[in-house]
């Protein structure tokens, strides 16, 4: 093998590297970028693509050349050259990859520090996850919501807790992810820089409703966000009177509906009155009209006592008897009774 062959092989590797890199860097593999963190992570990905293209080109060119050049003809019983190794070459392919991966590690470390740095003016949002629903609390405004609203261009720190099993917080456009772990409070920061509607996706297997455990995310201007927050505060303030004001029936229904959505019922059950359309559990508009209040009460706290045909046992969480107060349970049962009778 001549020096010229080696030079040609090396040229082929470089050309292939450039071609693969140029094509692959053009594509937005990670989809729309919607946060400052996303830009950092996408840049790291592009660097990795170029390095990987180089390594993969070496492999493909060497493999392709060997197959093309050294392919045996049928009946050829000769042996190859008895080359046992080449110390300089072996040192090279130990040292060069080491340098490349250490560079990758160092660069990743820099980016990691960058995307996890806390800004002093960040907005605080508390996130609670349970099978199969998300809940967001804005501690400064005393507001609770099942939709996540955040202002654009301001860092948000999410403090997160899980009530039952592990869940994971991911908005693909923001590129950040963190598990919510029972018994721990975990934190993640994101700085959304693109207004629009997104989805929060649970990425840790959490049971039967895992694939539908999502929440709407709205990134809006600071003004719109403030307006939304004020509206929520007003609505919720009205719903949770401090004293013994007489509760209107409609208020009770509203309370029932908020329990229904906040406790995650709407993540699995269809109920026209609450606007939910999930089909993991039985359709409540169909099964409830035949039931008494006592039966509904029992089905909430002990779901396996009576199982609708077509659904397996233990699909529904068993701990609502503990997590709901008696008053909440009564409100929920009343709400369900009135909702389905209204539909009849």
């Amino acid at each position, binding site marked *: 093998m001549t020096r010229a062959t080696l030079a040609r092989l090396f040229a082929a590797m470089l050309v292939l590297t450039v071609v693969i890199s140029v094509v692959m860097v053009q594509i937005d*593999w990670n*989809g729309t970028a919607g946060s400052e963190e996303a830009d*950092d992570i996408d840049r*790291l*990905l592009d660097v*990795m693509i170029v390095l*990987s293209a180089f*390594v*993969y080109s070496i*492999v*493909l060119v*060497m*493999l392709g*050349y*060997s*197959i093309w050049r*050294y392919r*045996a003809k049928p009946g*050829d*019983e000769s*042996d*190859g*050259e*008895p*080359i*046992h*190794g080449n110390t300089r*070459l072996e040192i090279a*392919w*130990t040292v060069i990859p*080491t340098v490349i*991966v*250490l560079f*990758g590690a160092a660069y*990743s470390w820099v980016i*990691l520090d960058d995307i996890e740095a806390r800004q002093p003016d960040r907005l605080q949002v508390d996130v609670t996850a349970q099978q199969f629903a998300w809940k967001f609390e804005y501690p400064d405004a005393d507001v609770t919501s099942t939709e996540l609203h955040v202002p654009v261009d301001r860092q948000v720190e999410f403090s997160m807790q899980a009530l*039952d*099993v*592990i869940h994971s917080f991911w908005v*693909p456009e923001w*590129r950040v*992810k*963190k*598990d919510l*772990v*029972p*018994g721990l409070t975990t934190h993640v920061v994101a700085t959304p820089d693109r207004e629009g509607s997104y989805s929060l*996706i*649970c*990425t*840790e*297997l*959490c*049971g*039967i409703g*895992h*694939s539908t455990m999502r929440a709407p995310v709205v990134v809006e201007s600071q003004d719109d966000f403030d307006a939304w927050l004020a509206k929520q505060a007003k609505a919720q303030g009205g719903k949770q009177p401090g004293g013994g004001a007489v509760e209107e029936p409609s208020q009770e229904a509203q309370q029932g509906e908020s329990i229904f959505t906040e406790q995650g019922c709407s993540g699995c059950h269809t109920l026209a009155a609450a606007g939910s359309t999930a089909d993991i559990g039985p359709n409540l508009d169909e099964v409830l009209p035949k039931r008494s209040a006592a039966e509904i009460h029992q089905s909430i706290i002990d779901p396996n006592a009576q199982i609708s045909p077509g659904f*397996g*046992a233990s699909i529904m969480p*068993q701990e609502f008897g503990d997590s709901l107060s008696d008053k909440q349970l009564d409100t929920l049962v009343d709400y369900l009774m009135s909702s389905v009778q209204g539909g009849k």
Partner: protein
Amino acid sequence: MAAALKKPGMPRALLGALVGGALGFGLVVALRAISGLPIFQTEATGYPHVVVPGISAPFGFLIGLGCFDYWFRWAAGAPTVPEDHSQHGARSWHDYFKFNTDHKVIGIQYIVTSFFFFFVGGAIAMVMRAELAQPGTQVVDPSTFNGLFSTHAALMIFVFVIPIFAGIANYVLPLMIGAPDMAFPRLNGLSFWMLPMAGILFLTSFFVPGGAFDAGWTGYAPLSTGAPLGQSFFNLGVQFAGASSVATALNFLVTIITMRAPGMNFWRLPLLVWANLSTSLLVVAATPFIAGVQFMVLFDRALGTNFFQSDAGGDVVAYQHIFWFYSHPAVYIMMLPGFGIISEVISTHSRKPIFGYRLMALALIGIVILSYTVWAHHMFVSGMFSWLRIPMMITTLLIAVPTGIKIFSWLGTLFGSVLHLYSTAMLFALGFIVTFVMGGISGVMLGMVPLDIHVSDTYFVVAHIHFVLFGGSVFTIFAGIYHWFPKMTGRMYDEKLGRVHFWLTSVGMMGAFVPMHWIGMEGMPRRVADYSAQFGDWNLVISCFAFLLGAAQLVFLYNMIVSWRFGPRAPANPWRAKTIEWQVSSPPPIFNFPEVPRVVGGPYEFGVPGARHAIMPGEGAEVREPEPTIAGTRT
């Protein structure tokens, strides 16, 4: 009838399983009666009436089959039948269903059993891809779907990839080092028979209330501790699979260290032997961790302990640390034997010594050491203490270096070779390089914390694991099966069908697994029965290629069965290889060698005039012993 039930064998084994199950059930009933508990009430997740027989019935089966007969007799002081060799060799297919101590029979038992579970796991994958072909729910409901992907992974990992490597090595490793059998033949037989116990336990979980275990093969607590009964079958199945692989690994270690033929020093070991030495070092030290953590889950479920109950002081993240302390080394347990196979195949079918043999062996040891230091890269977003991410990232990326050494050494071996491309084993070996390097590259990306944060628990991870486990391990398995098929069966397989199998498999795997990277990066999480409509088109494409991939395996099945039965007789050494297993007849004689061979050189001395690896019995006197050569010396 009574006689059949008295002597070791399948009838007595089935009786043993019944008796074992009944004893377990009776024990639960009796203990509950004594302690004043309601006798037949089953707790929400404990189900002692099923879990205890789930342990005792498999033991009853193993005892009935005769796995323990010798030891029981010996322990009781009764006369034993030491070495009448009645349990060696297989005269008919019936003998494969008996307790056997012949490493070659056990090797076949392992391989056929593992392939059975491969086809079951593959069929499960086909059902999953049918469901995922379109958004929404069409074929199976979300609960069944979660059970399907969990059992798919458990079957493929614990009762296909890990044990089939043990099976291949069981067959060829003693022959390669010039040993008459494994060091502990009876333990070897027991190791094998624990394997179907694991697979049957996994599959039984489909038939219990609540359905198959559905917390993923990772079985993260507390999802697993609160799951229905099927989860206990996973906890128990892992114990049998784990005990099986630990016993086999000990057997390999002792065999390799103590039973090498004279002259077989460590620098003359074929790289398959090096690879299994490394793998065994991983298995014996790491596997007890998964056994332990699954027991902890079982105790949380059945006995009310609180290892992973956070509201009772348990630690949820601890599960993941213990689990991955095994399960990351496990990915090398599933890869290193394959590296060994590839070295044998590439050297033999390209007629060249392995380039940089000694560095190849050292790279294996490097991987073993590093693989114990990277487990938390599965937990970058898990909420563990955050400083650990940086050192784990560095070690994770460094492990690419010894892996790269192996790839470059294979390429160096191919350079200047006489490359026999018509052999199916070689096609799979070369295909392995193309696909495994892609899996390695996505692995390096996953090792970088910021990228991992974005893609962890997405289809990118599904793509990565299938590139390294299918494009990696399974390709090496096929290479190994085709390479040693003539040796094991004494028949040649059909190369034309082999090529069809290779090309359909390659096209199917690329089409099925490459787009998974893209949808994962764009936002499709893994382990979902349903997904957002934007991914519908790609999922349809993936499903179509997955069906092609599944169909391709039927070609393999047909080729193997028909060739085994009707293929042309294989010569002793169809590939003109140098290692010892090819110097005996195909299939080898019942005790391998009439006399132990003498090893006089490296295993891959292709093209070196007059060089030999071993001198076989019977050719000793007239063959002049050449100057000893050692693989890795410069010529």
